[in-house]
């Protein structure tokens, strides 16, 4: 049996942190992706420009650099804000910018940009006839979006969401660099203390492998469900 030298519970806690981080970031990313895609497809030039700038900037910068910027920069910004509040209102206000929040914000922002592209493509894949029909029935814009666009675009977006999720899951490992005690961090500390790198990193690698493999199966199942009633050619 695998002997984790007493680090077992800590590794398990770390795995839970990793999973929480991944799901919260996914929620942020999907929200930002829907907003971004709507902005890109809108007629408003300002919204379009803002969304395009957002996706271009995110795709040009490494995730780790962005994370370091938000983590260290976020703390400095909070400190400046709290100084300002103290000087003007004499209110003592301070909080520590923690790695978990920085991680969720950064990963959410990065994958929000990828989701924007995924959702944009998926919205465009919905036939215009469907939207025209909804309008002809007197649906409002919001109604059209919720009842017609959203359910039909999800089918096209699913494969993209699945890919993004797989990459996102692996990106969560980076948050250990800014000090979050996820399973990578625990394994690193254990490996250094016990001088047994293989012993701790390989089980963690297998947890990631299990997570990605499990997600793959789940996404396949979702895809199958979403495509019920669609006859595929070829």
């Amino acid at each position, binding site marked *: 049996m695998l002997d984790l030298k007493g680090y077992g519970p800590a590794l398990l806690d770390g795995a839970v942190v990793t999973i929480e981080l991944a799901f919260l970031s996914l929620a942020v990313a999907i929200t930002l992706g829907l907003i971004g895609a709507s902005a890109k497809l809108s007629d408003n030039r300002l919204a379009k420009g803002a969304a395009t700038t957002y996706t271009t900037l995110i795709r*040009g910068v490494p995730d*780790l650099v962005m994370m370091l910027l938000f983590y260290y920069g976020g703390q400095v910004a909070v400190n400046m804000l709290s100084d300002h509040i103290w000087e003007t209102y004499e209110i003592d206000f301070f909080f520590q910018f923690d790695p978990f929040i920085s991680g969720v914000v950064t990963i959410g922002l990065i994958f929000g940009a990828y989701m924007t592209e995924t959702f944009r493509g998926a919205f465009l894949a919905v036939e215009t006839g469907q939207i025209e029909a909804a309008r002809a029935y007197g649906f409002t814009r919001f109604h059209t979006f919720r009842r017609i666009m959203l359910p039909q675009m999800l089918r096209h977006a699913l494969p993209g969401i699945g890919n993004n999720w797989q990459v996102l899951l692996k990106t969560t490992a980076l948050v250990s660099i800014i000090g979050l005690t996820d399973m990578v961090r625990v394994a690193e500390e254990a490996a250094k203390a016990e001088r047994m790198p293989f012993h701790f990193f390989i089980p963690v690698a297998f947890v990631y492998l299990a997570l990605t493999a499990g997600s793959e199966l789940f996404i396949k199942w979702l895809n199958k469900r979403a495509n019920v009633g669609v006859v595929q050619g070829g």
Partner: protein
Amino acid sequence: MPDFIAEWLDKNDVFTAMTLMEYWGGMVTTVQLVFLSLVIGLVVAVPLAILRTVKNPFISGPVWFYTYIFRGTPLLIQLYIIYYGLAQIEGIQETFWWLIFREPFYPALLAFTLNTAAYTTEIIRGAIVSTPNGEIEAAKAYGMNWFMRMRRIVLPSAARRGVQAYSNEVIFMLHASAIASVVTIVDLTGAARNIYSRFYAPFDAFIFVALLYMLLTFALVFAFRKLENHLLKHQRPLNS
């Protein structure tokens, strides 16, 4: 030069000649690391991709296993396993390999190469598998043997189909290389981290390095667009 830029340059004490040289050194390391791992990775990936398409499961199976493991786990873990793990191998410190692998650059290069080779193998495999059957039949009808078919027909046409996905992989690798800084390599991100901790100036240090990465990214995007135009010239609509 507009006044506000001159004023800002006067007041700033982060961007001196010394820190700029540090960024430059980091840029050189990043480019070397990424370029070498991509080139070696590509050279390894082509034969692996061909093996991956072979019908015999005893040949394609191990390649599948390799790509599955390396694509299913984070690069950071792979880097840690290789960086900390190599030093723990019994007796390695007495061999000449130790002269190479005690520098953090080479374990990182090995990790990045193995990682990018796994992704590239799958990209090329996808491109090989989707070769139109007619092209292969035509090659057979001309009496080409397997080797010549691969060299003259399958691989060139796979390159055209794979180049777009490969350009994404290249940019992904450039961005992923930022984690080299966690094993004490002073690449671009490493330089930025050093400068941040010296001046406690996160915005200056990291926004500047973000701009440098963006510059590299857009240069790559531009280069690949040129390459795609070149490779896909025959598919261009006549009116453009």
